[in-house]
């Protein structure tokens, strides 16, 4: 099967209405063509409705920041995408929830830029800023959908993907990778034998790598069987999220809802017990604190 890794730009074409993608145009802003080249932002149409696109160009190399290449999200890339989100919010500020344009994240990234300059200036702020912008868009009524077509690795996935309302992913057979760290690196850091880790990685969704395990954990809403169906499934999920938000249900999509989904699918049961226990303990003493 033909993999989609490294083909973020093609994925845009496969998903949106023909010839509708206007790169670097979002709301009132026109991004300079060479800024944050690893991030592809713009406006397209999906079923004749406007949609903001936030994708990763995993072929691009940032000429200014040496550690930013082949899908790595650097400071320019993260802030560029944050701007595109804020521009989207502004463009539709006066519109009712049902008419706010969706945002589509096309995910294929190995992570955030790990460099000295990035640490000096604060890569943590860049990725944090983008995540807050996405969360704000979601909370003010935009449908935010992520489509994992390649790598969704650790901090890169947190930055670009995990703040979405719904997350869709292509199956493992297409080369999709979702994980935090390769087993060899985990073994080196935790000092646990790689053989022992391999055993666990066959069955424990909390630890194991891969799309199917993330599905069990509630970290992915749906696995889309093949790239040809991305457009149809994304359109359906946009409609679903829009319907939820139009009736005022904002906690039935997004990271919180995926936590609940993790319990339903059986991959993440302890989380729910923790939350319930804390709530019950606090309610017994709440009067001491909330006068």
């Amino acid at each position, binding site marked *: 099967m033909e993999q989609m890794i490294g083909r973020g730009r093609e994925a845009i074409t496969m998903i949106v209405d023909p010839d509708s993608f206007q790169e670097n145009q979002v709301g009132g802003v026109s991004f300079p063509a060479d800024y944050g080249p690893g991030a592809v932002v713009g406006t397209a149409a999906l079923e004749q409705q406007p949609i903001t696109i936030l994708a990763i160009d995993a072929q691009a190399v940032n000429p200014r920041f040496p550690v930013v290449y082949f899908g790595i999200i650097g*400071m*320019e890339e993260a802030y560029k995408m*944050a*701007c595109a989100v*804020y521009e989207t919010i502004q463009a539709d500020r006066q519109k009712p929830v049902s008419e706010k344009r969706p945002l589509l994240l096309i995910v294929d990234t190995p992570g*955030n*830029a*790990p*460099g*000295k300059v*990035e*640490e*000096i*200036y*604060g*890569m*943590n*702020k*860049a*990725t*944090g*800023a983008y*995540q*807050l912008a996405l969360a704000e868009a979601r909370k003010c009524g935009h449908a935010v959908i992520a489509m994992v077509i390649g790598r969704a690795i650790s*901090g890169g996935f947190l930055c670009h993907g*995990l*703040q979405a309302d719904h997350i869709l992913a292509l199956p493992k057979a297409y080369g999709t990778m979702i994980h*935090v760290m390769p087993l060899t690196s*985990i073994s080196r*850091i*935790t000092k*646990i034998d790689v053989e*022992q880790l391999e055993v*666990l990685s066959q069955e*424990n*969704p*909390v*630890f*194991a790598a891969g799309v199917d*395990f993330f599905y069990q*954990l*509630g*970290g992915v809403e749906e696995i889309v069987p093949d790239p040809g169906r991305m457009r149809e499934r994304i359109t359906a999920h946009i409609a679903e999220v829009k319907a939820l938000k139009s009736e005022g249900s904002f906690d039935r999509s997004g*990271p919180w809802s995926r*936590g609940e989904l993790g319990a339903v699918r059986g991959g*993440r049961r*302890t*989380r*729910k*017990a923790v939350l319930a*226990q*804390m*709530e019950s*303990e*606090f309610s017994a*003493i*709440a009067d001491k*604190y*909330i*006068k």
Partner: protein
Amino acid sequence: MNTDGLMEMSFYSATARRRASQLVDPGTFSELLAPNDRLVSPHLPELGEAVSFDDGVVTGVGRIGARPVFLISQEGRFIGGAVGEIHGAKMVGIFRLALQAYETILDREGRVPEERRPAILISFDTGGVRLHEANAGLLAHAEIMDMIQETKGKIPVISLIGSKVGCFGGMGFVAAATDVIVMSSLGRLGLTGPEVIEQEIGKEEFDASDKSLISRTTGGRHRYIMQDCNVLVDDTIRAFRRAVEEILALPYEEICHYRRIGTYPLVQEQMALVQQAAELMPGDSMDVWRCYGNDEPELLPEWELSEFLCAVRRRPKEVP
């Protein structure tokens, strides 16, 4: 018990539980999901690892004056304070309870009086995701970021960074996303830890054995110069506690001005900084310090804190 003596204690070496209880008014701290609840990670034993009855984080509630203060205090001594399923859920739980407390007061009174507006304190001591239960830890980070956005316009969230492990990995952007960051000079804040940079890019990019390089790149003084850290304090529990009191005495609107990200204008200000990074390409943080008018940057780490605070030139802020 002589609490005065304890307050003079180093924040850096204090346990998570001590930090949590001493940051609020004496006798007001109640731990939620305390060790005697015996809820432990089901995942660590599968790897033959020891568990901790608090899963490396102390969560609870206390008061400062009339204000309910919800606390998260991480314990770096347990697997580097790393965030697994329970640890992450406890953090999310504190955000939920604090937000519910805000809604309760709002419902009852129609407004939330400043002096009783709930607040969240996070004392970080972590390298981010716990690799032994990495996927659950990762998903918890996303939930916490969602919760932070949910607090905006409602309740202040204050980060306290001055413990041994510092604040790295996903927790590095969680801290960046909060309203206020208080650090000591010993505090460390970043995204990619020094060892990881050395491993990924090489020793010529970052020598992780160079302690003063780590301090210059991620330490409290550097973050203070960059305006990422809002308040720089001595390494005592008392100093952190005083900073928290002073911040919470401000009207909420004013506290929001301490943020570094979270609005479009703030993002644009950060982009100007990235532009500077591209032009200057500093080999060391000292190049940046010099840029802001510190003529002898090599002296900055040496000074006493009081001298440093008097003499240092910080990045000029553009957004008021």
